[in-house]
C-alpha cells in the first residue's frame, strides 16, 4: 500500500551542528520525488530520517495521516536501495529477494510467486541461484531494487543508487527504475546529485542547499523558471548578466534592451538585476543587433559547438570572465573561430530575471 509522505518542520542536529534547520515538504502517493543538491546539503540525512535510521530532533514525519517519528525502522514498511547495493553476500539472489517476505504474513506459495515475478521484472531471473559476488554492479543493483520492491513497501527510498555504475549502465538502469516504479505505482524518494538523472527520472524535484529546500517543482519548471540564481546555476548552466530593469524593460547594455511585458511580475521594482540566460537559448543575429561578443575559444562537441565568449564591457559580467554559448550544428550556418566577433540576441520568453540578491522576478514563480 503506497502512501503519501508529509514532512513537517523537521530539524536535524548532529551534536551542536544543525544540518537541517526547518524543513517541510509533501510527497504525493505514487509520486517519483527526487532530492537534489550539492554534496553535504543533507539529502542522505533527510532520506534516512524518513527511513528511520536517523533521529528526528523536532518536527513530524507522516505516512498518510500516521505520525511515524517513534516507529522503529523495521516496522515502517519501507523499501530501501543503497548506494553500495548492500546485497547480502552470503545469500543467493533468490534468497536476497525473498528475505523481507519472511517478516510479513505472506504464504509460502505466494512468496515464491512474487519473487519469481519480481526477478522477471528486473530481468535477473537467470541468476536466481548465484551468489552476489558473481554478479556485475548493474545486476547487483537490480537485486537490491527487487528486494526492496517485492515486499510491497509503503515507500521506496533510494540513495544515489546509480552512482557506482558506469555511464552507460546508469542511463539504462534509470530507465528501468522509472519503468518499474510506474508499473508498481509506489511512492518513491530518490536522492541524487546528478542533475541530468534527476531531470529525466522525476515527477517533481526538490532542490536543497545547506539543509534548506530552495524549490520544489516539476523538472521542466525547475529548469525554465528557477526560483533563484542558485537553482539557475545548479540545474544546468546559466550565464548571469548584470542588467537593469525599468518598468518592464530589461537593459543589457546602452544599446540593447528587451521588452518583458507580461513575463516579469508587474510589481517588480526597477533597478539593478541579474539575468540568467542558458547557453543554448541565445540567438545569433545576422543583422548585427544585440550584444557584440568575441569568440575566445570554440569546442566542437558533435551536435553542438560550445563557444566561450568575452564582452568588451566588463561590467556586463561581474562574476564571470566569459559566457558560454552552445550553437546547434543542425541549424548552424557557419562555425566561428577564436577572434571572430558575433552578435547575440536573447529570447525574452526563455530568460530569467533575478533581484541582486538572486530571487526570481518572473511572474508565476513562487518566491
Amino acid at each position, binding site marked *: 500500500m503506497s502512501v503519501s509522505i508529509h514532512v513537517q518542520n523537521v530539524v536535524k542536529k548532529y551534536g551542536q551542528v544543525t544540518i537541517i534547520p526547518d524543513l517541510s515538504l509533501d510527497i504525493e502517493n505514487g509520486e517519483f520525488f527526487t532530492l537534489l543538491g550539492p554534496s553535504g546539503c543533507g539529502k542522505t540525512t533527510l532520506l534516512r*530520517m524518513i527511513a528511520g535510521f536517523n533521529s528526528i530532533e523536532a518536527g513530524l514525519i507522516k505516512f498518510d495521516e500516521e505520525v511515524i517519528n517513534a516507529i*522503529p525502522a523495521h516496522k515502517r514498511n519501507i523499501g530501501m536501495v543503497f548506494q553500495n547495493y548492500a546485497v547480502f553476500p*552470503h545469500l543467493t539472489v533468490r534468497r536476497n529477494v525473498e528475505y523481507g517476505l519472511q*517478516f510479513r504474513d505472506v504464504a509460502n506459495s505466494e512468496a515464491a510467486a512474487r519473487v519469481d515475478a519480481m526477478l522477471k521484472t528486473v530481468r535477473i531471473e537467470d541468476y536466481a541461484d548465484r551468489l552476489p559476488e558473481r554478479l556485475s554492479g548493474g545486476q547487483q543493483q537490480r537485486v537490491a531494487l527487487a528486494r526492496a520492491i517485492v515486499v510491497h513497501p509503503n515507500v521506496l527510498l533510494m540513495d544515489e543508487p546509480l552512482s557506482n555504475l558506469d555511464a552507460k549502465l546508469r542511463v539504462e538502469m534509470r530507465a528501468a527504475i522509472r519503468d518499474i516504479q510506474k508499473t508498481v505505482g509506489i511512492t518513491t524518494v530518490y536522492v541524487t546529485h546528478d542533475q541530468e538523472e534527476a531531470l529525466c527520472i522525476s515527477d517533481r524535484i526538490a532542490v536543497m542547499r545547506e539543509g534548506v529546500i530552495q524549490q520544489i517543482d516539476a523538472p521542466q519548471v525547475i529548469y525554465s523558471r528557477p526560483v533563484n540564481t542558485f537553482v539557475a546555476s545548479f540545474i544546468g548552466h546559466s550565464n548571469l548578466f548584470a542588467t537593469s530593469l525599468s518598468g518592464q524593460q530589461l537593459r543589457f547594455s546602452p544599446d540593447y534592451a528587451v521588452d518583458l511585458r507580461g513575463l516579469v511580475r508587474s510589481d517588480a521594482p526597477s533597478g539593478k538585476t541579474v539575468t540568467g540566460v542558458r547557453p543554448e537559448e541565445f540567438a545569433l543575429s545576422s543583422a548585427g543587433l544585440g550584444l557584440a561578443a568575441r569568440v575566445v575559444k570554440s569546442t566542437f562537441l558533435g551536435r553542438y559547438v560550445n563557444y566561450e565568449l568575452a564582452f568588451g564591457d566588463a561590467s556586463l559580467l561581474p562574476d564571470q570572465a566569459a559566457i558560454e554559448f552552445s550553437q546547434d550544428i543542425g541549424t548552424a550556418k557557419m562555425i566561428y573561430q577564436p577572434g571572430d566577433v558575433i552578435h547575440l540576441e536573447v529570447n525574452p520568453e526563455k530568460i530569467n530575471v533575478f533581484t541582486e540578491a538572486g530571487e526570481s522576478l518572473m511572474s508565476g514563480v513562487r518566491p
Partner: protein
Amino acid sequence: MKLAASPRDFWFWTTLCIAALFIVFLVYPLFSLFASSFVDAESGAFTWSHYAAFFRKKYYYRALLNSMSVTACVTVLAVLIGAPIAYLTSAFHIRGKKLLDTLIIISMLSPPFIGAYSWILLAGRSGLITTFFAEQLGIRTPTIYGFSGILLVLTLKLYPFVYLYVSGALKSIDISLSEAAESLGCDPLRKVFTIILPLITPTVLAGALLVFMNALADFGTPMLIGEGFVVMPVLIYSEFVSEMGGQANFAAALAAIMVVITCLIFLGQKYVVNKKSFTMSALRPMKPSQLPAVQNTLAHVFIYGLVFLSIVPQITVVYTSFMKTRGSMFVPGFSLESYATIFDKLGAAITNTYVFGLVAILIIIVLGMFIAYLSTRRRNLITSIIDTFTMFPYIIPGSVLGITLLLAFNKPPMVLSGTAAIIVLAFVVRRLPYTLRSSAAILYQISPSIEEASISLGCPPMRTFFKVTAVMMLPGVMAGAILSWITVINELSASVILYTGSTRTMSVSIYTEVIRASYGTAAALSSILTLTTVISLMIFFKLTGSKELSL
C-alpha cells in the same frame, strides 16, 4: 551508525548486561586488589606499610629492578633478531620461507615454559650438553640459570612477535618508494636506513612493546630457570603462596604496583606510536631479490640457526616424551610409558584443559562478537569504556590477574575460588582480546548499510544481528577464536594461582611435574599440548586462507 529506533532496544540491554559483567568480573576485582593492598592483615586497618616494605627492603625492590633489566635486554635482543630476519626474508630469496614462518609461529605459540624446561634438560646442571662438555672435553659450560637463562629463553620465544609485525609492515611498503630512493642515487644499505627503517619504526615499537609486556609478565620461565634471580611475577607468586590463609595483602600490593607500571608503559607507548605512525598500503609490495653467494649463505645460516634454536624446545620435548625413564632420569631406549602414566594419573588434567578451554572459548566468542559490535557500531561513552577495559587484561600479567580474581572471589557474596568457574573466568578475561580484535577488524569491513537493508526490509535489529551481521563476521571471529583457544590451553600464570587438585589443567600439570623433576610425564603432556596447538594453527591457516597472524 546511530539508530533512531527506541533507545531501549536489544542493543541497549546488551550494553547493560555486558557493562554489568565488566563491573562484576573486572572492575570490582581490580578495585578489591587495590583496596586490599592498603589493608593490614592483622588489624584490618588502613596501612601504607605493604608499599613501604616493598620500597625499603632490597630483596623486594630488587625483583622489580631484575624484572626491568631482563625485560629490557630481552626486548632489545628480540628486536635485533626479529627485525633483520623479517627484512632478510622479505627483501631476498630465502629458501623454505613457508616452513620458517610455520616454525616461528609454532615456537611463539607453544606453552611459555617449555623453553625454560627444555633448556634445563639440555644445558642445565645435569643437562645433555653440560655433561657432554664436562665428561668428554672437561670444559665447564656457562650456567643456564639466572639472568642469562631467562634472557636466552624469552628472547627465543618472543622475537617472533617482532618478526611477524615487521614482516607485515614490510609488505605494506610499496616498491616504488624503494625504487624512488635508488633512482635518486641512494645505495642499498643507505636505503635501508633512510627509507625502510623510518617507515617501519612505529611497527617495530609496537612489536617491541608486545615483547616487553610479555617478558615482564612471564612467570613460568623465570620460575623454572631464574633460581636466585627473582623477578616480579615470581616474587608475587611466592609471597602470595607463603602469605595464604585468605589474606594476601602484601601480594596484592605487589600486584598493584605491577598494574600501575604496565599501564604507564602501555599508555606511554600508545602516545609515541600515535605520534609517528603512517598509514601505508602497497599496490606493488616489495619483491624478494637474489643475494650474492656469500651473503646468501650467511643469511641462510643466520636465519636457520636462529629458527632452529627457537624450535629446539619443541624437538626436545617431543623426543624425550618417548624416552624410557627411571625416576626423574632418562635412560637409554624408547617407550610410551610416559604417555601411559599421564593418561593413568593425569587424565583429568587433559580433559580439564579441553573442557574449560571449550567453555571459555564459547563465552569468548559470544562476548567478543557483541562487544566488537557495540564498540564499532554503537559507539558511546559506555561502549568505549568497555572496549578500553577489555584490552586491559591483554597487558596485565597473568599472575596479577590470578591474584586479582582470587582476592575478589574467595569471600561472600561470590565464592568462586577453587571452582572450575574461576579458571574459566581467568581464561575468558585474559584471552578475550584476540577474538575481540579480529571481530572488530572484520566488522569495519562490513558496510553498515547491509544491516540497514535488513532492518528496512522488516527484520528487527536483534534478528538482523544473528541473520546477517553475525554470519558475515564469522570468518574473522573464528580466526580470533582459534588464537584465543591456543593461548587459553597454554595459559599458566593465572591458572597456577587459581587451580586446586581437581581443576588442574595441562599447563599447570606440566609445571608441577617439572617442579617435581618428573621430566618424562612433563614431556608427554607438553607434546600433547604442542600437538593440539599445531593442529589448531593448521585449522587457523586453513580458515583464514593465509599464513598470516595478527596479534
